[in-house]
């Protein structure tokens, strides 16, 4: 065994806890998890069965922790994991898993398969079998500040433009504000309207907020790749800024993986609970709606459906706010069959959208089939969502299929119809 493979096995051994052991021992090979995974339902290829994606991890569990497995290993009857095999698994663990968590909802014995994939990725990161796209994004976030290599001056520029467009000042590094606003690079670059929307809403509600020039990026590619040490560096930046600026709340942008990273993984990465609260922007908006601050003038008329981003809704627990908010602004909102925590992934989560190999892109387009059917079956020309990463992925797919579905961001839609 090579030294690096030794390290991989060691990492995998360390990530195996009682839940993972229990999950592996419970699996009855019924294959039901496949029926919940868009990569299987849209391709029909059994290799995309969720539990199969963690097979090397199962073998490490068996060989290192079970009586029978250890006996078999001693007499040389078991097959140790190989570097080559991990190389083969890269596609299964990254390209074809978006960490959407739908499989964890259906397994009859109760296995939380997405948790296992997430943990397996930590070993994969050590092995080096990770997609270049996510590796690059992680490196840029650690070294430059964001996954797209965006630096503060560029962000400041976007903020200035948003100030001009809205007439609202956007404070930076202001101590004592209520909210520290985080963004995702994708929003800054592709959907600057989000920032304008937010500034307008904060101004209207009379809430004080600030941005931090050294911690504006909320996404955390370190988590997606499975490198906890890097993920920790990225989260620490935000925690330091929040504590320095003495804010009460940190506002997660729409972006789902950003929310997951800061709200749920953050405290576990730094090893202590936060002294501030992490709030998703839709949670805040829904609270303002309930307080009657979010009053609309005119409604959006076109029939539309909602795409619930996995990491915010099913994985993040923001279950009720999205629908309540869309009903506030849309006259013809059509609920779809698999919605809220049952929604299907756009196909680009978990870092997948950062993988730009030909195969990964083709697979992503195929996986979009389920979303395409949802749009067509509802017979609508508009879909609303609330995650910049979903938006990029969906827009690429709409292009690919030459669909003329309009894609809108929920926060912006609300801001557009906000009473002056």
């Amino acid at each position, binding site marked *: 065994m090579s030294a690096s493979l030794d390290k991989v096995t060691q990492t995998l051994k360390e990530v*195996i*806890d*009682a*839940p*993972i*052991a*229990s*999950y592996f*021992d*419970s*699996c*009855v*090979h*019924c*294959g*039901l998890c*496949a*029926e*919940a995974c868009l990569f*299987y339902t849209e391709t*029909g290829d*059994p*290799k995309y*069965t969720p*539990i*199969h994606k963690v097979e090397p991890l199962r073998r490490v569990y068996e060989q290192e*922790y*079970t*009586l*029978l497995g250890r006996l078999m290993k001693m007499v040389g009857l078991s097959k140790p994991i190989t570097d080559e095999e991990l190389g083969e698994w890269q596609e299964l663990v990254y390209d074809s898993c978006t960490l959407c968590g739908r499989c*964890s*909802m*259906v*397994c*009859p*014995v*109760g*296995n*939380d398969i997405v*948790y296992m994939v997430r943990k397996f990725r930590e070993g994969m990161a050590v092995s080096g079998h990770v997609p270049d796209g996510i590796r690059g994004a992680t490196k840029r976030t650690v070294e430059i500040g964001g996954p797209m290599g965006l630096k503060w001056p560029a962000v400041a520029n976007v903020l200035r433009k948003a100030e001009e467009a809205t007439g609202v000042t956007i404070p930076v590094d202001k101590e004592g504000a209520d909210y520290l606003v985080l963004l995702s690079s994708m929003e800054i670059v592709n959907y600057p309207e989000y920032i304008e929307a937010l500034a307008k809403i904060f101004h209207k509600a009379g809430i004080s907020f600030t941005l931090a020039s050294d911690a504006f990026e909320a996404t955390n590619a370190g988590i997606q790749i499975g490198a906890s040490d890097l993920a920790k560096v990225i989260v620490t930046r935000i925690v330091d800024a929040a504590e320095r600026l003495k804010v009460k709340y940190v506002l997660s942008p729409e972006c789902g993986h950003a929310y997951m990273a800061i*709200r*749920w*993984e*953050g*405290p*576990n990465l730094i*090893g*202590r*609970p*936060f002294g501030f*609260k*992490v709030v998703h922007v839709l949670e805040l908006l829904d609270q303002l709606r309930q307080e009657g601050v979010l009053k609309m003038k005119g409604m959006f008329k076109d029939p539309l459906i909602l795409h619930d981003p996995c990491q915010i809704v*099913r*994985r*993040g*627990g923001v*279950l009720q706010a999205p629908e309540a908010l869309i009903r506030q602004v849309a006259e013809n909102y059509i609920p779809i069959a*698999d919605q809220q*925590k*049952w929604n299907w992934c756009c196909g680009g989560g978990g870092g997948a959208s950062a993988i730009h190999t030909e195969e990964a892109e083709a697979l992503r387009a195929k996986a979009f089939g389920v979303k395409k059917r949802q749009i067509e079956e509802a017979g609508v020309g508009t879909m609303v969502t609330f995650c910049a990463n979903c938006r990029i992925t969906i827009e690429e797919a709409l292009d690919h299929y030459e669909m003329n579905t309009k894609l809108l961001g929920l926060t912006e839609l609300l801001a557009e119809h906000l009473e002056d």
Partner: protein
Amino acid sequence: MNDLQFLTWVRGTGLDIAVGIFLLGVLWRLIEIYTLGRKKDLAAPRHAAGASGLHTVFRRSLPPPGMLKRSPVSYIGGYIFHIGLAVIVFLGAPHILLITNLTGLSWPGLPTQFIDLVTVVTMAAMVVMLVDRINKPVKRFLSTFEDWFTWAVTFLPVLTGWLAVQHLLLPYTTMLALHILSAEILLVVLPFTKLFHAFTLFGSRWYNGSANARKGVPV
């Protein structure tokens, strides 16, 4: 060894060995799994109605929305044979008698004819499940020797028990001895194969349910 000696052995020494391995095996495996522990979740929890480990332990017994249609054989076949096995094992008169002898506990059983019917239905469901495992690409792909082996080890006690009661194929004494032996094999392999899900599924559902409950998601 003649038939009667064989029967005496499986009822005596054989049973002791099998029950011994079963109990020690279950205990060992439970310790092996659950002493691995898990890290405390440091993120501030959110609360939601219907979200907890216990909720998930029960909720996962029912097919989630849309799943019954996607895999009817797995659900319907699965229900029939699991319930069938439980009825046969815990409500068949001879089995209750055995449990009474081992533990002193006793309860009323169901009429023999009814148990016969349940047995036939259970076997039919198990055969359908086997065919499904062979036919369905995903199931076939996932299947290893263990899946075929555990199917056989579960099926044999049901089959031999039924044959013995019906006085088919072999003399009653021989068939009964074979039935008991096959059940003993089942007991011995249970803790060390996927059949152990009979124990771990409660833990698995609970872990999944409670981890997601912290985020406020009923799963």
